[in-house]
């Protein structure tokens, strides 16, 4: 080997297993949430005041909370809430954002300027504050959280889709389709959208972690899910004063958020490398 520096030769090459690792971790999280009713050792809402604040034990792997509910059970069900929020928020945001973005990117001219300026306004508007305001107006609930985050999240997809669509619009194969008389909407659906999917897909998986963190933050501020719904952010908020005395009530929901967000981020990073055309390490 000629151009390898002595330093590099000593460090072993670690194969890029990120995507696989992320996918496995995510599968575990999703399965745990889906199979919550079967996996959960205890029924969801059955406060047992006698068993208040028990530390982790054989009976309660993650201990119990202030009203004696099994923390593990609530985390499993909480997974459902978080994943539903993530899927719903990203579904709405991507649908609205990509549609507007692709039209803006392909049409160009004043159409693009108008759409992009409106997008910039929503981007400049502090996401948390808009969410707070909406949550205040619509009474806190999981649906409010979904709407509140989606309203501030779609602009990212508009901006991404617009830049991707703008570059595709200049490709010769789009010109060729125009020369065949294919109408613009059909060109968008048939050529521009399919070729814009890869970057959007990568962004979706990278954003999932962010959505879960934001929804947990909203619940933490008391604007998301309300008692008695099992939601990780709410669980941390309710247990925050117990960090020193009964650490498990706060730590396990926090870890659940971390692991789920981590799984999505790792998968997203892996997808970005796998789908990036220039990924081949020369």
């Amino acid at each position, binding site marked *: 080997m000629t*151009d390898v*520096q002595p*330093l*590099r030769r000593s*460090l*072993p*090459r*670690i*194969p*890029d297993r*990120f995507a696989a690792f992320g996918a496995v971790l995510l599968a575990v999280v999703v399965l745990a949430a889906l199979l919550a009713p079967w996996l959960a050792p205890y029924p969801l809402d059955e406060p047992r005041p006698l068993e208040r604040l028990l530390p982790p034990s054989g009976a309660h792997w993650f201990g119990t909370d202030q009203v004696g509910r099994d923390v593990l059970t609530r985390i499993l069900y909480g997974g459902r809430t978080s994943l539903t929020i993530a899927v719903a928020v990203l579904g709405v945001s991507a649908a609205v954002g990509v549609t507007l973005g692709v039209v803006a990117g392909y049409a160009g001219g004043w159409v693009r300027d108008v759409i992009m*300026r*409106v997008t*910039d*306004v*929503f*981007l*400049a*508007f*502090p*996401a*948390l*504050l*808009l969410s*707070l*305001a*909406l949550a*205040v*107006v619509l009474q806190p609930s999981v649906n409010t959280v979904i709407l509140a985050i989606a309203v501030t999240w779609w602009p990212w997809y508009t901006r991404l889709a617009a830049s991707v669509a703008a570059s595709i619009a200049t490709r010769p194969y789009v010109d060729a389709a125009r020369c065949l008389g294919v109408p613009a909407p059909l060109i968008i659906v048939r050529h521009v959208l399919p070729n814009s999917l890869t970057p959007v897909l990568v962004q979706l998986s990278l954003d999932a*972690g962010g959505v879960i*963190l934001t929804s*947990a*933050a909203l619940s*933490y*501020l008391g604007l998301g899910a309300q008692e008695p719904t099992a939601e990780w*952010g709410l669980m*941390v*908020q309710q247990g*925050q004063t117990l*960090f*020193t005395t009964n*650490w498990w009530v*706060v*730590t396990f*929901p*926090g870890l659940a*958020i*971390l692991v789920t*967000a*981590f799984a*999505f*981020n*790792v998968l997203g*990073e892996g997808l970005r490398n796998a789908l990036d055309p*220039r990924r081949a*390490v*020369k």
Partner: protein
Amino acid sequence: MLAYLARRLGQALLVVAGVVVLTFAVMRLVPGDPAVAFAGPKATPEQLAEARARFGLDDPLPVQLLTYARDLVTGDWGTSLRTRQPVRDDLYLAFPASLELVGAALLVAIALGVPLGVLAARHKMRLPDFGVRLGSMLAVSVPVFWLALALQTVFASNLGWFPIAGEYDTSLDTTSPLTLWTNITVVDALITGNWPIFTSTLEHLVLPALVVAAYPTGVIAQMTRAALIEESGQDHARLERALGFGETSILTRFALRPALSPVLSLIALVFAYAIVNGFLVEAVFNWPGLGRYAAESIRSLDTPAIAGVTLLVALVYVLANLVVDVLQGFVDPRTRSR
């Protein structure tokens, strides 16, 4: 370049106008009679009528919007229902503290993120790269409010290495009072050489700044690494190798500067994100910043205050983007000729 900046400034003003309209609209969404929102829930009918007149609440909406915009420009951001002070003054007190926290966090993020990114790119697909990617992945995945609680409990409450909350030891106000210049405590203390308050603020700043810095550090490290690998895969890296330059000097002397361009635009983004994240951390560490002010305003439905905070944060975001556009010109000459 000037034409480009002029156009960007024009766009920025448009965006600010848009934010004003959006804020106005959202504030009108708040249920109940706007007069109550301005005069307070326990206001007497006369006070309500007076508030209605003063704020022109009977005028058609567009007129109200214009008066609202005019007031904003002239500095009248309304009076907070909770503090009974002009919102502008409340913001004048709270904003510097947030700036102090976010500023410190960003300094940490850049000081840690960029070198880690370079290290990872230099040893691509090897242990350091794997470590940095894993670490940054964790940093962007950790819930901020939970991390705040954890650090506070471990390092403040239990180990006592750092103060639990607050911006500085208020007992110092009597022993060595601080003269205010920029209203940013640590900066004023530095300028006026008030060492007791300076060190005390630094001590209070460590934990919250680290928490706010977690996400930016991770994302800056990831972006720097990706941009460097992209740049060092270009043809020019091969010519530099053919000129006899070693890998490290190719990365630092040729690839780093163009690679900083995407990192810079990321920093503007992360700055705005940090302000929002700061809200949560301020609540945990009782930091007298915008976050705490906004949280309390929301709890008490203090509409003018909420609007004030929103506009201020939006203005900061737009300004940050403009500053980055100017810096782009220096980092990557290609943008200068755009």
